């Protein structure tokens, strides 16, 4: 079966012709084709549009099937993620409810204070890291070990448990420094948890207040450590000269 046709357009993969029945047809591209050329077209040269559309519809259906299949997995995965997220959040909330923040203050020894979300001290754990024992190889172990029984000040810490940390911070700092027993106050601290910045501010303020207070006390009680005004010192120097 063959038809006569005029070549109307030559594309990269196919050509469009108008056959002698008045049909516009897509045909296979062959060598030496020219627009306007009248050619014989065989039935096997025609690219059947109905087949193309059928193929398209088949691919569409199969694509839809694949899509549906994948969507099932996608929904399952999404649901699993949601469940895991909810569970994780709940677990995290319950765990953080026990201790909202962790305050670590280090002077002559370290204090690990667990504070709940209402600023109440839940527990105190401390480790002996006095500067005298800095070279001790067991230092790290000491920090991690609960030393409640070793310190002998267990009663002091117990009295702070349940109290508001803001109220007892000055006492805690004094306790740590007094144990240190040095002239230069060197108190380090670190905070982790929800109210990190607030506690840091509070501790810093408490330390500063305490430092001022100690300086004043020392100046009052120990005149040797209280340097004379610069003028009088110069005068003394002149005397020696």
């Amino acid at each position, binding site marked *: *079966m*063959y038809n*006569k046709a*005029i070549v*109307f*357009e030559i594309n990269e993969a196919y050509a*469009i012709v*108008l*056959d*002698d*029945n*008045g*049909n*516009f*047809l*897509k045909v296979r591209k*062959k*060598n*030496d*084709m*020219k*627009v*306007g*050329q*009248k*050619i*014989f*077209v*065989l039935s096997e*040269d025609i690219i059947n*549009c109905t087949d193309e559309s059928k193929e398209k519809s088949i691919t569409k259906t199969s694509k839809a099937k694949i899509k549906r299949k994948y969507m099932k997995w996608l929904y399952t995965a999404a649901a699993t993620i949601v469940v895991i997220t909810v569970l994780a959040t709940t677990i995290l909330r319950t765990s953080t409810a026990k201790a909202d923040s962790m305050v670590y203050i280090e002077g002559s020894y370290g204090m690990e204070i667990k504070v709940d979300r209402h600023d109440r001290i839940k527990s105190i754990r401390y480790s002996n890291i006095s500067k005298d024992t800095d070279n001790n190889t067991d230092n790290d172990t000491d920090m991690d070990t609960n030393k409640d029984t070793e310190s002998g000040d267990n009663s002091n810490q117990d009295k702070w448990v349940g109290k508001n940390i803001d109220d007892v911070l000055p006492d805690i700092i004094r306790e740590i420094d007094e144990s240190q027993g040095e002239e230069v106050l060197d108190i380090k601290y670190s905070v982790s948890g929800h109210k990190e910045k607030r506690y840091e501010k509070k501790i810093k303020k408490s330390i500063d207040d305490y430092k001022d207070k100690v300086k004043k006390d020392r100046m009052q009680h120990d005149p040797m450590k209280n340097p004379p005004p610069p003028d009088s010192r110069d005068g003394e120097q002149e005397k020696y000269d």
Partner: protein
Amino acid sequence: METSFSIGSSKDVNKLIEENMGFIIKSVSGCTHRYISIENDDALSVGMMAFAEAVQKFDENRGNFYPFAKLVIESRVKSHLAKETKYISESFEEIEEKEGEFASREVLTDTDNMQEDIDIFKNQLELFDITLDVLVQCSPKHRDTRRNAVSLGERIAEDEYMTGIIYKKKKMPVKETALRYTVTEKFVKGNKKFIIAVMIVFYKKLRSLSAWIREAVR
């Protein structure tokens, strides 16, 4: 197509060629890897002569005719192509010498005229946002529908009022066309792009194309 070929004495070779034209075209096209041109295709002439030769030389006791005929056609066409290539390379120098003479002559062939018509046709189609690919999809599949669509397109092309509206709106007013030419709205709506294409051919007086379309639906 017959599976076995019997050369009846009543059938002359010309009639056999006419009846087996599809086979001859397929054999020649398969050999040349190109479409056979309707006008002046040497390969087709060679193929037809080879077919006639095969008819004359065929011995019924040797098996089927068509594989034999195909062999003869392919053999003759291949040797023709080989000769043609040789001739072209030999006469190339002579052509170059006569280049000036050829250049001065501008001969417009039928294909050139057709090409011009097709260019105009495609440009006009663009005005209506129609491509040839769209026409492939939208052409009426049924012969009678196609004939009616061509007839309507031709009538619209002669109607200045309608062509004015269509060119102004860049689309076909379905209701108005249906009322004016007493056809169903469904018919106009379903074939409007093909009708516009036919209208363009006749309205722009694209002679080569209009002759082809008239012949097609006759």
